[in-house]
């Protein structure tokens, strides 16, 4: 690892970038990311609307594409069953498997970028978080109330790390449960499925979870992604082997902590050297927010596997490896 960075030229230090604000912040990479998220969400929305209208028009739920056919997790959920029996779990289509493989392919080459760039549920959480920020900026009493709530909840911060393990348990339950029982055991509680099937007006646990996720996103950015998303858990495992990672160049960094504040996944980027956390969604908000040119850079090289741990380290809360020569 040290050999890798020994060949890396150091950037010019200290060049201060002026942060983009308002609509200007939507130009460049973040604008591209938001456009991508919006496009994927609109495609899925179009499928859901088409399906809902077709069923309402008497198609009897027939052959019209369902929204759940566009869920990548269905393809991952059926892996155990497919390996054991050669068959897919009920409700899984070829499209689910293809999407699942595409997500894992993205995870290998671009870490959690599917979550940060393409996942509609992640986009919805981003929208709620953006709305939360807007409301807090415009309505001081709300800001104060949220701050007070955050202070009082700060004692629960010790639960953050163990709670991040929950998504791996959900992943295991979904895959093994599907293999054991032959049905998608996660489907009924899946908020994404609830959103896709919202036209069917069946109120279930999934819809309750969806509402909880949306409400939670107002207070905790990407709450579902942080703690419970099994797809994020799967991509996180694959991303451990990715040759691409984000590096913080200490010599160019002023340790202002802006990157940590900007991270929607709550990763303290400012105290890490190499960000290889499975929780990183590759949104590049930290890079965009960084006021120092060259302090945070994406690099490709041999996969960094410092520790096999599903938890971020306590000190840096991200996998941190000193790679200075």
């Amino acid at each position, binding site marked *: 690892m040290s050999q890798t960075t020994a060949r*890396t030229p150091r950037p010019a230090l200290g060049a201060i970038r002026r942060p983009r604000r308002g609509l200007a912040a939507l130009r*460049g*990479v973040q604008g*591209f*990311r938001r456009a*991508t998220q919006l496009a994927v969400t609109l495609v899925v929305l179009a499928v859901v609307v088409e399906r809902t209208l077709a069923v309402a028009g*008497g*198609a*009897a*739920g*027939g*052959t*019209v*594409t*369902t929204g759940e*056919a*566009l869920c990548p997790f269905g393809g991952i959920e059926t892996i155990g069953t*497919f390996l054991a029996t*050669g*068959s*897919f*779990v*009920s*409700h*899984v*289509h*070829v*499209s689910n*498997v*293809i*999407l699942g*493989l*595409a*997500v894992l*392919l*993205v995870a290998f*080459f*671009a870490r959690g*970028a*599917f979550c940060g*760039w*393409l996942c509609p549920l992640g986009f919805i959480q981003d929208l709620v978080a953006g709305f939360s920020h807007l409301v807090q900026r415009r309505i001081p009493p709300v800001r104060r109330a949220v701050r007070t709530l955050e202070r009082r909840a700060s004692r629960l911060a010790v639960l953050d790390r163990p709670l991040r393990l929950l998504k791996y348990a959900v992943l295991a339950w979904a895959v093994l449960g599907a293999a054991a029982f032959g049905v998608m055991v996660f489907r009924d509680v899946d908020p994404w499925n609830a959103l896709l099937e919202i036209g069917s007006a069946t109120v279930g646990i999934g819809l309750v979870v969806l509402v909880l996720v949306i409400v939670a996103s107002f207070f905790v950015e990407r709450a579902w992604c942080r703690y419970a998303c099994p797809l994020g858990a799967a991509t996180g495992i694959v991303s451990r082997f990715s040759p*691409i990672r984000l590096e913080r160049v200490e010599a160019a960094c002023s340790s202002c902590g802006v990157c940590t504040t900007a991270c929607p996944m709550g990763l303290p980027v400012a105290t890490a050297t190499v960000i290889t956390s499975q929780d990183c969604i*590759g949104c*590049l908000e930290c*890079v*965009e927010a960084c006021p120092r040119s060259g302090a945070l*850079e*994406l*690099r*490709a*090289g041999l996969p960094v596997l410092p520790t096999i741990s599903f938890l971020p380290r306590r000190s840096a809360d991200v996998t941190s490896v000193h790679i200075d020569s």
Partner: protein
Amino acid sequence: MRIKPIAFGILTVALFTGTIGVTMATGAWQTTGRTAAGAGAGGGGGPGSGAASGPVESGSATGDIKGWMTIGAVATTAGVSLPEILAAFALPADTPPETAVKDLESDVFSVTALRAWLTERTGPSTTTPEPASGTGADPASSEPAAP
């Protein structure tokens, strides 16, 4: 090697859409395993119903009958009148044709029972090869007949 953030985004989108595009181009992309009653394609053994591949048991199309299909569509495609089906299973004569088969299930009526009855009526089962990949995925081409 340093990677520009915009290149990272393009890589992400290209990998994802490229995978989907290639499978669409090769005909592997299927978003539904559901087909019309009697279409004899995919529904019996297609991905949506649990089997990854293989021949479809479609004995006179009855093997393709699914619980989500309407009783009217089943009657139309099987060439049997709806009142005849309803009478055979002692179902209410005023049952709307758009009722899903699964919604009519009782002690004496089930999808399996309906399949067996229709097979008996229309002849023994035959095994037909599954059509080329993708043919069952086109909603327009596999829309159930109007009840």
